């Protein structure tokens, strides 16, 4: 079968009991893209992301990764949670090492890689602390480290900044974009769910705009602005305004 992108979402539908949540959603994500999925709350964005991750089976349709059907979680696809989902009873470094559970690697090697990552995400010294001793922003950094330690090709992020206060979120967004654009980064595709329009415009080069429930794709908007993006520039505002208009019409 011929397919275009690194990840193809094809005609996905999903319902919970009698409630239609997702109706026939299709889009393609290419290599080196940052795709945002945006839509009103309750429209099934997070469900869609879980279907892409292979955590939930869709009612109809399929997700293709490199042309192969995704039916269960996959070593190449990783996930960052809105509520961080760190195990409170494991130290931060143990939490990060969980990201390598599927890999046949010695514990020393896992430890070594995790320590390197702690340095990279700016949390050196917090390896042996427990998650609940960290602030929200630091927790999400640990969550991010757990997601990328296995060198995934695709990174899925479910509202990764929405549990943080605005200042922390802004700082983390900048760090994330720098990290993802660094040359040694294995991640070649990010798909992020958000309800924050500015965040979507700041980070992504493709925005999938969803309607209210049952959600379908209203528009797929390309954003060609150069990184790092100036949130006060006219072009930036234009993109934001356009997405707001599509969302509310």
């Amino acid at each position: 079968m011929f397919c275009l992108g690194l990840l193809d979402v094809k005609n996905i539908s999903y319902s919970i009991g009698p409630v239609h949540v997702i109706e026939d959603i299709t889009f393609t994500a290419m290599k080196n893209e940052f795709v945002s999925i945006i839509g009103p709350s309750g429209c099934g964005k997070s469900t869609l992301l879980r279907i892409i991750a292979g955590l939930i089976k869709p009612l109809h349709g399929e997700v293709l990764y490199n042309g192969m059907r995704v039916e269960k979680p996959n070593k190449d696809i990783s996930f960052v949670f809105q509520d961080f989902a760190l195990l409170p009873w494991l130290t931060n470094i143990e939490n990060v090492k969980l990201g390598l559970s599927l890999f046949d690697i010695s514990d020393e090697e896992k430890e070594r890689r995790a320590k390197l990552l702690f340095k990279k995400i700016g949390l050196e010294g917090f390896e042996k602390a427990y998650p609940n001793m960290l602030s929200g922003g630091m927790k999400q950094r640990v969550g991010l480290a757990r997601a990328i330690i296995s060198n995934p090709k695709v990174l899925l992020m479910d509202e990764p900044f929405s549990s943080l206060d605005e200042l922390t979120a802004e700082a983390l967004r900048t760090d994330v974009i720098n990290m993802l654009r660094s040359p040694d980064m294995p991640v070649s595709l990010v798909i992020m769910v958000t309800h924050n329009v500015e965040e979507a415009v700041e980070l992504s080069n493709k925005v999938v705009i969803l309607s209210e429930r049952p959600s379908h794709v209203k528009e797929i908007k390309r954003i060609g602005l150069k990184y790092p993006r100036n949130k006060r520039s006219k072009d930036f505002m234009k993109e934001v305004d356009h997405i707001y208009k599509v969302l509310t019409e």
Partner: protein
Amino acid sequence: MFNYILQLLVDTSFSWARMFIALGLSILLGLGIGIWAATSRRAEKVIIPIVDILQTLPILAFFPFVIYIIVATIPGYIGINAAVIFLIITSMLWNIIFGVYESVKELPHEFIELTAIYGMGIKEKLSKIYIPASMPKVMSQSTLSWAIGLFYLVTSEIFSTSSKTYMVKHGIGVALTQLALSGNFSEYLVGILIFIIFVILTRLLFFAPLERYFNKHNMSSIQKTHTTHFVHLIKSRLKLKVPKIKIPIKFALGKKHDTYSLSNEVVMRPKKRGYANLVYALLAILFVAIIVSNKTLFSYELSILVSFIASFARVWFAFAIILLISVPLSVYLIFFSKKLSAYILLFQIIASIPATIMLPLIVSFFVKMPFHSEAVALSVYLLSGIWYVIFSMLSQKAYIPQSIYEVKRLFGIKGLQAWKKIYIYAILPGLITGAVTGIAAEWNASIVAEYFTSTGIGNGAVLTSVSIGIGKLLDLSLDNGNMVLMLLALLNFTIMIVIINRLVWKRLFNRIEDIYK
């Protein structure tokens, strides 16, 4: 044929009527006492430790005995029925009190502020806030109370002292004991069958609709569903048991901040602590002095201690078996099964079939084997404790966020690693709470497990008896009306409960609070 079935139906109905009256009164008392303890600091300090001890004592062996004699001497069947209902209440009440207490304690502070802002009177506070907030837990605890009540129904309906046997006119407890004793096996089995049908019908027609009704407001919207909160609550309960004294505990794996927080407490009240320790030491010396100075007391104390050691071994051995069964079962149901609620319903029904009515069956099953009295005792201990542990662990499911399941699947955490990193920790708070209540229930059952007669406890024909044990000792002292021995055993029991709480449970809770905070 038809006649005796009808007779059994009538007997069961009478027993059920007693159970419902006892449950109703227990709920009323539980609401009153629980809300009182949760809203008044002073009441809390007295009520909670007492209730905790009463929950563990085999209460049937102590003061109900006295009350039974008093009430049952009221002429006619009023006195004896009142006594039976009273006895059932003594087995149903305690966990309901804790359920209410925890519900009110869990209420967000905003709710209490709300009552102040709108100047609510006591009546409004009760009817609008405290009682509705408690009802979901009252219902779930009632299910448990019902099961415990049925366990003791059999031993309450028929009761004998050295001089006289008291029994109700109609009661399934009496009927089953007599059928089993007369060797009327087929009728006994029919009786059990009717009993089980009543249990199922009660579950489906009474408890299920009520639980649905009281849960419709979905308390989860206001209750924090974090394990941390849960652990904290349980620990605060344990902490209250022996108020005011704190022995600095050094953990084998203690970290720096442990000693910091402990030393903080010590610094804050060094004088009080020293004072309390002095009082305890003096009391202990006084106790020992009295025991040693009196030959009879000394011999009593010796036999009590030896009996305790024997029962202790049984209770904890049974608990080890409980763990071996319940931990894998709970992990399977929480992490793998999609039919958890169906299993819970099934377990609730099975848990309501009391070991006491099965005892004649259990005895006849083991009777030919060596050590059969030990096997019977272990079975009764096991059956009386296991459901607390299982239900408590299964209730942990509500505290496990969905994302943990997703993390497990996403990162492919399986097998031994999943046990070490997820399962054990996820169920641990429930395991420890279940252990506290389950072992309490085991001790509670000691008077039935170790010595069972045709009149339940009391001096009927002995059906099963271990060679030595605290349950047996209590039963025998009950037979002979030896109040001194009984009270001394009660004192020993209380001391043991306090020591175990301090040495085992409190330490464990300190440890896990550290992990979950």
